């Protein structure tokens, strides 16, 4: 009777098996045949490979299920049964553990690809839910090149199995995964998700993989797996060969054992000979168990952020409280404003971003899910998910790509019982407020006592202590002379106990004038008291100056380089402003024609009170756009100039809209979409910009849009014009399907099609009402249709 793997893992070095494909080629795998198909027709061959590895000394054999999933094989269960059957027969009576092998789906997840995160979870779950009943001892998620897909697989394993989860990823020689994640970022996320072991496989051979192994061991508290390829594959005489032989490979495994790898084995190109040699070489090296690191770490999809080394700035601007523009954008479902705030805060020096969408009249769960996804599409800073509602936290933690900060939990029973299980399941560093049902204690001792109560519950729920950061809360000094002192003393007391501390700094000055004066001074003192993380406004020069000055003064800014860079940057900005002082653009029309966005904004702002919105639009903006459009059609201007003019017009429209709401609307609605299956949208976005600059209300459905959603949007918006785009020949069919459905469901809408693959005759053939060869053509065709309709 073999021991449960969890009892063995971390007590001795385990040996994994090696490659499967090359051995199957030797045993009759046909050209182009997938290993799993050979497993169906010749399961005895798979069994013989497993036996060979066990005889070579492998403790763990890996099922022949790497390429099996419900996306590729409708009858995937038959494949799983065949593969697990072969593994069971081979392992029977040997004590070998059976690893249920889970490989990538073969598709890239959104936003880089087209597979939805939850669909990926479902695909993995389809297979994994059978692993236990078919006799597997562990789930091995391997050869993953993308952090997000790895998370989908781990969640599927957690939700559909009780088996220990091993995860091993592919890193390149720069030490990153294909989609940019570092080993430290992966360790942070995977340990948060509760996996039993992390590591690397495949990659570029053992010599190039060893440095990554070192980083994994330095970061991980769980055992580390090392299963590299036998070098880089090359084709010689029609055969794939690898450039590292068994003896050389075993030398690297010896090094890996010395470094502290807990599980060693092989991947592509390795054979039982490699594993046998590695077992012999490494046997004399005493096992080094993994060491608990106890670091407080969050991560994005690219990098890890350690809390407690240098003070961390969390940008506070993505929070609708007191921000009318953000409120309006959220109510319209327009996230462009949010994305701009995200990028600009990082540009100003934020290490992480707080994200709060708490508005009473929006669907906070849906907005948070969408917001997290959109922000992570463009910004790689770790995020702090901020909501008072556990269901919002869960929705965001589930889809977050990395390990988030979670804001927040307090000492009330309801809060602890709803938030801590989420941290346990999805991973995260939780901000713990030192308050309970009775409010915030007035004294240092009272707040510290609450912190200790929270920590007891944290242990009870199985959350790691290092995944808690306490916020001792800061009340305004306007309402109590001792408020700041109590907070600062609480920070010191918590730090003495070894805890990490966070503060929402600006609360200290609530109700006072010139708040930055108080805030920046308080921030500096709090940093001196040991504050680890501050939620502040990175756009505040006073706060960021205080931050950079503290970093320099505390010896955390080598040679004051960041401080100096900041001063130079500010100086450069001033200089550039001065250099633009002599203005030559004097009318809005010229500014738009020349594509001078800043000038267009300035001139629109100056001219609206005097000329009025309509005169500006009809007398300056539209004629300017028409002039550039004509020049474009005549070959005297090019697409970049057209775009710059449209950007300038749109910026001027925004100003006019602020001054005279509704004035910029020409009364017509256009729905735009790139059809299902097509992920290109640059052309569609250009069309959108042009339509907006002519005053149309544009409902942009994005890319890869199903026909049903297009029809729904046209029906619900009452749009008169629908613009559809397709770039690839493979998506013309999808374009035709969409036109057909919309014509049936919404016969009154006029459909204009465009995109690289479309022609006028093809547009006619699929039943569209019009064809636009380019963006300006689309606007003209729409105007003609609307005029004719009248």
């Amino acid at each position, binding site marked *: 009777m073999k021991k449960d793997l969890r009892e063995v893992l971390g007590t001795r070095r385990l040996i994994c098996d090696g490659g499967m494909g090359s051995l199957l080629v030797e045993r009759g795998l046909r050209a182009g045949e997938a290993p799993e198909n050979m497993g169906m027709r010749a399961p005895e061959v798979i069994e013989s490979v497993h036996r060979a590895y066990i005889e070579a000394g492998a403790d763990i054999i890996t099922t022949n299920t790497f390429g099996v999933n419900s996306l590729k094989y409708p009858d995937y269960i038959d494949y799983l049964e065949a593969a697990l059957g072969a593994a069971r027969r081979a392992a029977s009576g040997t004590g070998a553990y059976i690893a249920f092998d889970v490989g990538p789906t073969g598709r890239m997840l959104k936003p880089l690809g087209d597979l939805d995160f939850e669909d990926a979870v479902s695909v993995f779950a389809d297979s994994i839910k059978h692993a236990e009943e078919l006799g597997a001892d562990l789930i091995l998620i391997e*050869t993953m090149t993308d952090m997000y897909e790895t998370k989908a697989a781990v969640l599927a394993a957690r939700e559909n199995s009780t088996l220990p989860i091993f995860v091993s990823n592919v890193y390149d020689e720069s030490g990153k995964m*294909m989609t940019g994640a570092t080993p430290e970022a992966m360790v942070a996320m995977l340990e948060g998700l509760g996996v039993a072991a992390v590591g690397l496989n*495949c990659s570029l051979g053992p010599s190039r993989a060893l440095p990554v192994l070192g980083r994994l061991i330095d970061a991980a508290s769980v055992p580390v797996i090392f299963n590299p390829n036998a070098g880089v594959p090359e084709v010689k005489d029609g055969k794939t060969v690898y450039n590292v032989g068994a003896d050389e490979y075993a030398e690297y495994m010896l090094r890996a054992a010395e470094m502290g790898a807990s599980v060693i084995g092989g991947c592509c190109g390795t054979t039982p000979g490699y594993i046998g040699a590695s077992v012999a070489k490494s046997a004399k090296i005493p096992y080094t168990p993994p060491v608990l690191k106890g670091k407080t770490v969050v991560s994005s999809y690219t990098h890890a952020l350690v809390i407690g080394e240098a003070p961390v700035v969390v940008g506070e601007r993505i929070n609708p409280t007191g921000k009318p523009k953000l409120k309006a954008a959220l109510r319209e479902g327009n996230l462009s404003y949010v994305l701009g705030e995200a990028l600009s805060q990082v540009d100003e020096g934020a290490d992480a971003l707080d994200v709060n969408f708490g508005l009473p009249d929006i669907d906070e769960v849906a907005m948070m899910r969408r917001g997290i996804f959109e922000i992570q599409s463009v910004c790689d800073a770790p995020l702090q998910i901020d909501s008072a509602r556990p269901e919002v936290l869960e929705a965001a933690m589930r889809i977050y790509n990395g390990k988030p900060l979670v804001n927040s939990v307090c000492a009330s029973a309801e809060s602890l019982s709803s938030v801590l299980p989420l941290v346990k399941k999805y991973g995260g560093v939780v901000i713990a407020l030192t308050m309970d049902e009775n409010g915030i204690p007035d004294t240092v001792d009272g707040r510290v006592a609450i912190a200790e109560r929270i920590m007891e519950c944290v242990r009870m729920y199985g959350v790691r202590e290092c995944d808690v950061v306490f916020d001792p809360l800061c009340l305004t000094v306007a309402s109590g002379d001792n408020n700041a002192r109590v907070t600062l003393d609480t920070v010191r007391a918590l730090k003495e106990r070894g805890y990490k501390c966070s503060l929402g700094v600006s609360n200290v000055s609530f109700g006072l004038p010139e708040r930055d004066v108080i805030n920046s001074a308080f921030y500096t003192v709090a940093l001196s008291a040991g504050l680890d993380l501050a939620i502040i406004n990175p756009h505040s020069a006073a706060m960021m100056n205080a931050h950079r000055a503290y970093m320099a003064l505390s010896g955390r800014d080598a040679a004051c380089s960041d401080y100096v860079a900041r001063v130079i940057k500010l100086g450069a900005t001033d200089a550039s402003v001065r250099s633009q002082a002599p203005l030559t653009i004097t009318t809005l029309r010229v500014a738009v024609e020349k594509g001078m966005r800043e000038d267009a904004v300035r001139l629109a702002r100056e001219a609206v009170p005097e000329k009025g919105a309509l005169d500006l639009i009809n007398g300056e903006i539209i004629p300017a756009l028409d002039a550039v459009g004509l020049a474009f059609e005549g070959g005297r201007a090019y697409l*970049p100039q057209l775009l710059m003019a449209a950007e300038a017009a749109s910026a001027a429209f925004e100003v006019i809209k602020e001054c005279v709401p509704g004035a910029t609307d020409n009364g017509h609605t256009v729905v735009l979409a790139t059809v299902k299956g097509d992920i290109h949208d640059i052309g569609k*976005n250009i069309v959108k910009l042009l339509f907006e600059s002519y005053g149309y209300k544009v409902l942009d459905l994005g890319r890869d849009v199903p026909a049903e959603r297009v029809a729904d949007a046209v029906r619900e918006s009452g749009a008169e014009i629908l613009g559809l785009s397709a770039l690839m020949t493979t998506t013309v069919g999808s374009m035709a399907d969409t036109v057909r459905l919309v014509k049936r469901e919404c016969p009154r809408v006029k459909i204009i099609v465009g995109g690289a693959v479309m022609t006028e005759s093809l547009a006619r053939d699929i039943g569209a009402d019009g064809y636009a060869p380019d963006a300006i053509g689309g606007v003209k065709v729409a105007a003609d249709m609307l005029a004719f309709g009248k």
Partner: protein
Amino acid sequence: MWERIDARRLHIDPAERRARLGCGSAEPLVGENECAEMLKGAADAAFCATRVPVSVGNGAVSLGGELIESESLSRVLSGCDEAYLLAVTLGFGIDRALMRATDTYGAFLADAISDCLIEAAADEACSRLECKELLTNRFSPGYADLDLSVGRYIISATGADRLLGVRFTHSGLMTPKKTVSAIVGIKRGRK
């Protein structure tokens, strides 16, 4: 064969630039140089290639044992006994950079320049193919009658799925977006 390409050393062909930007002027557009530098910094360019036997006949080509029906590819590979299958990518960093463009002009500029960069990277990859013979021009799935689905074979045969992380969407498009798959014939006789 697998190698990295230093994107910072890639040279954008002026004719390619004019075609992609739709712009007659040789003068850099507003923000163009900065955009090119940003993209070169974001790129993680690499290629992989494998040499396979070729036989041509009856409007079809046998390429490493894979039968591909294509008159145009047959013409390109006539006189070749071998060919390189080639996969080149700028990596996912470019896809992220393209998503970061906050305005349409910036997005257009970034898309056009990254198109130029992937062409330059493919040229660089071809120049590194170890070969004593002359090579044909690159011929990619989607050119003329060469079906897009051939891309899947090239990616699989070169190992670009594992080595470069190349995947296909449901409708057959490659990710990372700025990825090229191609066939390069090796002509009989020495250079």
